[in-house]
């Protein structure tokens, strides 16, 4: 999309079109000829996997919208009708429901990859922020989509999430009433959620376009974090990465298919097969697994507004990450201390997710009562979430800013091609270049 183009129109029609609308040139430059670092590992295939996930959700979603009825009296039955009577409806609906989970698995891996290899650092800050926007849109879309089957979890999930806005001072109540279009989650709410659930994926697709544009300006980061120096460092995207991404996508599809065909309800909640009943809340209400870490942060704070602020803060902090990390070294391959903190961060996220699915007052170690601190036993999931949430924020706000100034990174290679000859992990001292300070 930028710089020199190697596209040469071969036929008359291509030449004619190229002068008027160089769309073939655009495609050629960005997915055929695009120079890509030759050392990308499998963690880099998740961009392609995510594009496929988005495509699957869009196609299956449009099809489901042909059969779904957004009305409180018919929504539940219309989803079951899709499963029972519509030709291959079971396949399409299970693909869509499990596809949401697959989308989040892939996006979390993609995000952790970006965190580990410093893909958010200059000159890729905008690329990272656009990714955060996509993630926010995904969360909104997934939440509203989960409301549509109008089961017990749909309904009470919608109640809980919309009530979060009630925590805002002064305007809170007005905003929740406005979101509901009434005095509770009801038919108007379902209708607008359906409309927005249809709209947002196209906004995601639009931001994905920008995300890819922003990727193609500086080009891919790579596992060494070292800038591309010469043509020797890169290979054309096609066929090298089309085949590699393709292989990863198919492997990912095998996992996806395992869920769709053999365990389609494993990632959902049994309670959502009970039609929504505003008079009875399920005993144990939890969001879908991909929201659990944030749900745990919400519950870790014994104050309604505080919990909401912290939960949204957990996402907001990602937007400013490029300016929080002070290290000039991109890849954590060459930052042994940061690497350690990173893996603790991953662990903290997993712990938060685990806590989010547990009752806050349950004991982490069964049967062991310690002492009550503030409002709960120290051996409870609420305290475990507090420690994990504390680490979550400390990683962004303390560890990354301080570490960049204090740590001594390992020597980075001169170029991408260099470590092929001597991998930094087992390179003899002096074989690689001295630490580089590069933006």
């Amino acid at each position, binding site marked *: 999309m930028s710089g020199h183009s190697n596209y040469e129109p071969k036929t008359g029609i291509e030449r004619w079109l190229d002068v008027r609308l160089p769309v073939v040139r655009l495609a050629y430059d960005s997915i055929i000829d695009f120079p890509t670092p030759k050392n990308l590992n499998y963690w880099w295939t998740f961009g392609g996997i995510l594009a496929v996930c988005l495509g699957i959700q869009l196609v299956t979603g449009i099809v489901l919208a042909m059969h779904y009825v957004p009305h409180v009296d018919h929504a539940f039955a219309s989803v*079951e009708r899709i499963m029972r009577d519509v030709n291959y409806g079971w396949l399409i609906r299970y693909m869509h429901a499990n596809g949401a989970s697959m989308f989040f*698995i892939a996006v979390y891996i993609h995000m952790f990859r970006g965190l580990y290899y410093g893909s958010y650092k200059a000159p890729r800050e905008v690329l990272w922020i656009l990714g955060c926007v996509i993630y926010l849109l995904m969360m909104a879309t997934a939440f509203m989509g989960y409301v549509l089957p109008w089961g017990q979890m749909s309904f009470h999930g919608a109640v809980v999430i919309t009530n979060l806005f009630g925590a805002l001072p002064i305007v809170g109540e007005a905003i929740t009433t406005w979101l509901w279009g009434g005095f509770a989650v009801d038919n108007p709410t379902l209708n607008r959620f359906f409309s927005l659930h249809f709209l947002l994926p196209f906004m995601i697709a639009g931001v994905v376009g920008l995300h890819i544009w922003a990727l193609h300006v500086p080009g891919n980061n790579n596992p060494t974090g070292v800038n591309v120096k010469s043509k020797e460092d890169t290979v054309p995207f096609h066929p090298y990465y089309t085949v590699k991404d393709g292989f990863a996508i198919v492997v990912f599809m095998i996992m996806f298919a395992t869920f769709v065909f053999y365990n389609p309800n494993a990632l959902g909640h049994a309670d959502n097969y009970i039609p929504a009943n505003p008079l009875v809340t399920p005993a144990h209400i939890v969001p879908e697994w991909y929201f659990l870490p944030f749900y745990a942060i919400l519950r870790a704070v014994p104050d309604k507004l505080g919990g909401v602020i912290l939960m949204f803060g957990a996402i907001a902090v990602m937007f400013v990450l490029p300016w929080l990390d002070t290290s000039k070294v991109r890849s954590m391959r060459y930052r042994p201390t940061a690497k350690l903190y990173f893996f603790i961060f991953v662990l903290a996220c997993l712990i938060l997710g685990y806590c989010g699915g547990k009752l806050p007052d349950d004991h982490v170690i069964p049967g062991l009562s310690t002492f009550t601190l503030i409002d709960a036993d120290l051996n409870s999931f609420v305290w475990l979430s507090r420690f994990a949430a504390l680490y979550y924020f400390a990683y962004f706000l303390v560890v990354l800013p301080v570490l960049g100034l204090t740590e001594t990174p390992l020597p980075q290679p001169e170029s991408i091609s260099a470590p092929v000859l001597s991998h930094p992990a087992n390179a003899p001292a002096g074989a690689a270049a001295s630490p580089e300070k590069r933006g």
Partner: protein
Amino acid sequence: MLRKGIALAAFGLAILAAPAALAAGGAAPVKHVEFSFEGPFGKFDQAQLQRGYKVYREVCSACHSMNLMSFRNLGQKGGPFFDPKYPNPNDNPYVKSIAAEYQIKDIDSETGDVIERPGTSADRFPSPFPNEPAARASNGGAMPPDLSVMAKARHHGPQYIYSLLTGYQDPPAGLKVGVGQHYNPFMAGDVTASWSGPHDKVPPGGFIAMAPPLAAGQVTFDDGTKSTLENQAKDVAAFLTWASEPKMQERKAFGMAAMIYLLIFAGLLYVSYRKIWKNVAH
């Protein structure tokens, strides 16, 4: 590279394992019972579905609706009365005769009067009660839940249904059971408030308004299967599982073809990938 792929898959599974560990509650763990439809090659046992339908029809349907089920479903592929001679379940004479045994409320197209006519295969299973208040009034205030997707609406659905139906027992000493209530260790709930025994020994389960519905010999099975409580419970659990997921067999068969295809496809792509990258040092 492949090693990393495996590590990656393991990582994904680790994430997934977290919510799978959610199922915790006051109820006793379900009884272990095996069904023919479990596993990737599982199939419904048609004779069992027929027996299960009989149990539903003669016992459950007195109180429980199945609003999402139509008579035609009984004759569709994989259903209890599927007959390969009648690929269109609407023409299946056995299904038609079952439907015709029911009187369905309708409106006379000429007079507008409310009439009753014999059911057709397109009709839905009639509800035992005209509306929710009527259902509650007849059942001591408790609403008998619709059974259409019951096996999907509970964790370990088939095992849960079996356990609940066979799990009625006398309440342990110290547990006060209210009027019109029954103790069942497999019912979701919390009996702490009615428990006068030691606090760390609260019995599992909860109270259920439904009296034990099944008993040995209650339903006569036409195929000679012994009509024990366990057999009735197992058969009706199988029937309700089929009703919850009538396309399950189709799904698993489709899945097997898809998996084989995807594995071959992945293999081809891997070889192609290795060849393309063969001479690139990376």
